[in-house]
């Protein structure tokens, strides 16, 4: 279970847009048809592979309900990536995007990669927001955009992995100081060269001594 990098994600958006379902589809490859209102935040994790590098995603799924806003805000800090989700069948969830972005800009670090997601693409017949509108919003605000379905799993992998790829590119470009944890990135042993040195997770990478703790 060694990893080269660990990325911290956060999933935000109005209640009922399918945030928890996206996470469940990504981690467990399941769909949950009943709305299980998230209380506060939930945690999920999965290992992915980018360019032969193992990357661990630590994902925080937040409650969309207004009353939990103050709790969920404390999870913005130290997130390297965010999935900002709306429901293509409910216009108001799209209209609220601006206020979610405002929140993110205020509480997250400015280099956080944000992926805009129009979810429930399987419900095309009830669509209330066109794909073009989504693309347009993303372009205006410098976000990446995808339409997904947590039900059919369409684009779900891509949503999480493309975000990771973006973050990975930023690291390559030296935008992040990876030793500073507030960027939501942690380096494992395998990060540097291509040599397959493994990390013993749980130990800070700097500690080379054998006696942990």
């Amino acid at each position, binding site marked *: *279970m060694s990893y080269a990098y*660990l990325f911290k994600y956060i999933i935000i958006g109005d209640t009922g847009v399918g945030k928890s379902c996206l996470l469940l589809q990504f981690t467990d490859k399941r769909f949950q048809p009943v709305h299980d209102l998230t209380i*506060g*935040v*939930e*945690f999920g*994790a999965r290992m992915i592979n980018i360019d032969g590098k193992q990357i*661990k995603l*630590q994902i*925080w799924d937040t409650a969309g309900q207004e009353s939990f806003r*103050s*709790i969920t*805000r*404390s*999870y913005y*800090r*130290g997130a390297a990536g965010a999935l900002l989700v709306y429901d293509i069948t409910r216009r108001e969830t799209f209209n609220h995007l601006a206020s979610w972005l405002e929140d993110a800009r205020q*509480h997250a670090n400015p280099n956080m990669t944000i992926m805009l997601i129009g979810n429930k693409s399987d419900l095309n017949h009830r669509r209330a927001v066109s794909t073009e509108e989504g693309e347009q919003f993303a372009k205006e605000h410098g976000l990446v955009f995808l339409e997904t379905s947590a039900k059919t799993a369409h684009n779900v992998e891509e949503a999480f992995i493309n975000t990771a790829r973006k973050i990975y590119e930023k690291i390559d470009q030296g935008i992040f100081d990876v030793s500073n*944890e507030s960027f939501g990135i942690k380096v494992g042993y395998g990060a540097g060269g291509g040599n397959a040195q493994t990390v*013993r*997770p*749980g*130990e*800070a990478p700097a*500690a080379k001594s054998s*006696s*942990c*703790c």
Partner: protein
Amino acid sequence: MNFLGAVGRTARNALRTAEGSEDDKLVAQLLARVADKEQVEDRKEALTQLCETVSRSEQAQLALGSSGFLQLCAIVQYEQADTEMVQGSLEALVLSMARRPRTKGQNPAAINAELFARAHGNVQLVMGLLKAGQQMQNPHIRLHAVRLLAAIAGTGTPRLSEAILTSPQGVATLMDLLNDTEAIRNEALLLMTALATTSSEIQKNAASEGAFQRLFGIVRDEGGADGGIVVQDCMQLLNNLLQDHQGNQLLFREMGYLQSLPAFLKLQGTHAISKQTAANLSCGMLTLHWLIADKKVTSMDTNDLFVAPLLQAGCFEALQMLALPFGGGSPARLRAQALGCLADLVKMSTAAHEKLMSAKVVASRSGAQTMLLHAVLRAALYSDDKDEQHAALALLTAFCQKHAEGQEALAATLLPTTSNPQPGAPRTFGEELMLAWSGRSTTLQVVGRAASISTILLRSSAASKQRFLNLTFQNQVQPDQGSSQAPSVLLMQLCITWLAQTVNAQLAGVRAAPEAPFQLLHMLITWLLDCPPAAMLLASMQGAMSTLTTMARIRVQGKSDLLGEMIAVCLGQCMVATSSQAAPSGGSEMIDLLAEKVGIASYLELVSNLTQRCARSSAISAESPKKEDSSQQASVGEMFMASTGPEFQAAVGRICQQVQEVIIAAFQEPRPNLSVQDMDETGLRQQFTALERQLQQLQRRSHALLLEATSKANIPAAALADSSSQSQHARNHSSDTTQLPVSSKPQADAFRELMQQTAGISNSSRLLSQSIPCLMMLKPPQVGPAPRPDHHGMLSSMPDARVPQLEARAASMERRTAVAEAENSSLQQQLQSLQAQHLALQQRSVSEQTQLKDQLHRSEEKARQAQTSAQQSQTELQALSNAYSDLEAHAFSLEGQLKGTDRSQDRSVEEHIAAAVASMEQEAEETQNDLMVCIGEEQQKVERLSERLQHMGVDVDKLLCEVGDE
């Protein structure tokens, strides 16, 4: 109306003494001096004195809480330039929250913390001092700020965590303090430890802020388990983050920290463990416990997710070192904990079980190796530490319970001892256990423990039960005789001998091993369960039956208790086994023995008592599986029974049922040894047979009645025992009360009839036996059948043969009649107590009904009161809002007046007014909310009461109408 001061004021009034009111005044004076900005030096002096006074006097502490917080907070907020004043103010605040060793109910620290934290701005103000941007702040101020929060958190108020969660980056700010200076870091650890217990959101938030990494980082820097108290604090916080928090446990695992735990627990070297290290390790093992056992939610596959990686990281080996007295030199408490963790692992995982099966350890100073299981056995047999002994036993139980092959393998090490035993210490598990049973230096306590361990080996294993039958002890000192030439003894015999000894010891008032007889009986019953050969062996063992029946009687004469009951079950097992075997007379012989020595009625009572006891204790253990220590009054026996587990208790229930069946059957079938075939032509024979039939019938009926009566008696008794709650019980209750009088009336009649019949029979039986000598005088032809020529040789011998037979029969009949009489009278007694019980039941139900009605009335009344006070508070709210407008107007005029004075003061006045108004508003709102909740609760109560009343057949709607009319 001032809501804010209400709490403080009542508390103050309660404590007010002459000295107290002086301290009140003193605090007021000091606060006034602190407020006087003209006298710069005197302010500081006054603040110092204030701190002194508050730390000295509880009264001053309360006084500061109710009147000084606003002022002190204002200094912190607006006079930041004067670090001395800010620091002093914070110190005074910290002191006002300091906990005192208290004797009375009041807790000034909690009251003050509540007062402080409920004003939202206060916590934000203090948090502001700690924000990342304030790094340049005076470190003393930051330290005092953390201390203040820690003191508030220490009182357990939930308001602090609420306030922290709602302040942006609140938890993150506090977590950052773990990277601060050592002093601040240490305070922050304590603060987070306290906070984590009050809110699962804080637990989660702290974990998401990298708590695990930071904690293990500190632990590593401080030297791991050998580090100081900071390490303990870190592990304590870790525990509080993981306890009952599935999300955090998963995060802990996902982020790869499982491996860090075994590394932490691994003993470095073999030096003796210091107290601090022991405390650190103990915390670490507790963490382990949260991860592998005690899961409230079991949706996760604990084994795959947690146990397997832990084992892979060397968890088992680390624990094994901690569990043993040699090698690590860990203290008993730690060893017990390590054994407990091993048991957790073994229960969860086959891999751990295999490790335990094959693990070898250095277990003596000489460095010789033994099997780990052998070492655990030694702890279970000989440890002086109760916890360690229990934990070792629990580990052996875990080892045997889920894995039959492990149990088999252990039992296989038990071999009959040879006439020339190997010198030196026992080298196998079996040798060790055999030695405990019969060694020269063994004690009652050790024997009891050996019985417990044997029980584990016997449980549900036919092979073990068979193996134990053949275990013999040779050339060992017998408990009774000191001779070394004693013949070989069966384990079963040894058990009975020890049992007799332990019972005698108890009778003699020896307190040494109070559990031992129960442990021995537990073992015997387990052994005999589903193992007829064992029961047959015991039944046929010389003297065993009479020893057991005697002991059962010893207890019966006194107050019936568990010991007699368990012996009765053991005897019952023998009876069931013998009666179902080919030997036809076996069962009835035992019944005769019981009738003679204990009395059938008393015996059946013992058996049914135990059944009830089992039902009770399994109900208790289902309710609260881990509440052993709360039963302060429970006797050793009851505690023991609770520890035997539901499986055993169910088995006892089954045995009791079988026993009852066997007894009934025995009285229904005619006894073969009593029917004499060769006398069927005589009138005498007819007379006898008729009498015999009558007697048998009588006994059958009386036993049927007895069984019926006892089983009837059980239900109301149980209902009485737990009628304290639930409508379901209430239902049982009422149906019993209606049924019982109907069924017990005819019973009484039947008994009376029986008594008369018995008396009649016993009379005729006596007459009969008196007439036997006369019969003897009679000539053979007159008694017997007409002589037949071909039977000439028999003619003269027949009467002679018959008379002693007749005599014997008459005597036996007389005896049995006496028994029947005795039993009938005891039946009568039981019936009486049954009736008394029943009467009590009826009275209870009546009084309960009235009580319920009362309650209903009362809650109706309360609901009405609550409604009126809700209205009141609404008017109050109105008044408040009026007052608010007034205040606003007043504030305007004040503003005018204050023009030209110091700007900051001006602002603070405004702030004060706004704060006061806001808090008043909030208070009023809260009060109303409380009232609403109150009304809701009352309505719920009414609903629940109505439900119960309905079950009892009361027309609730009508009743409610009546109540409403009143």
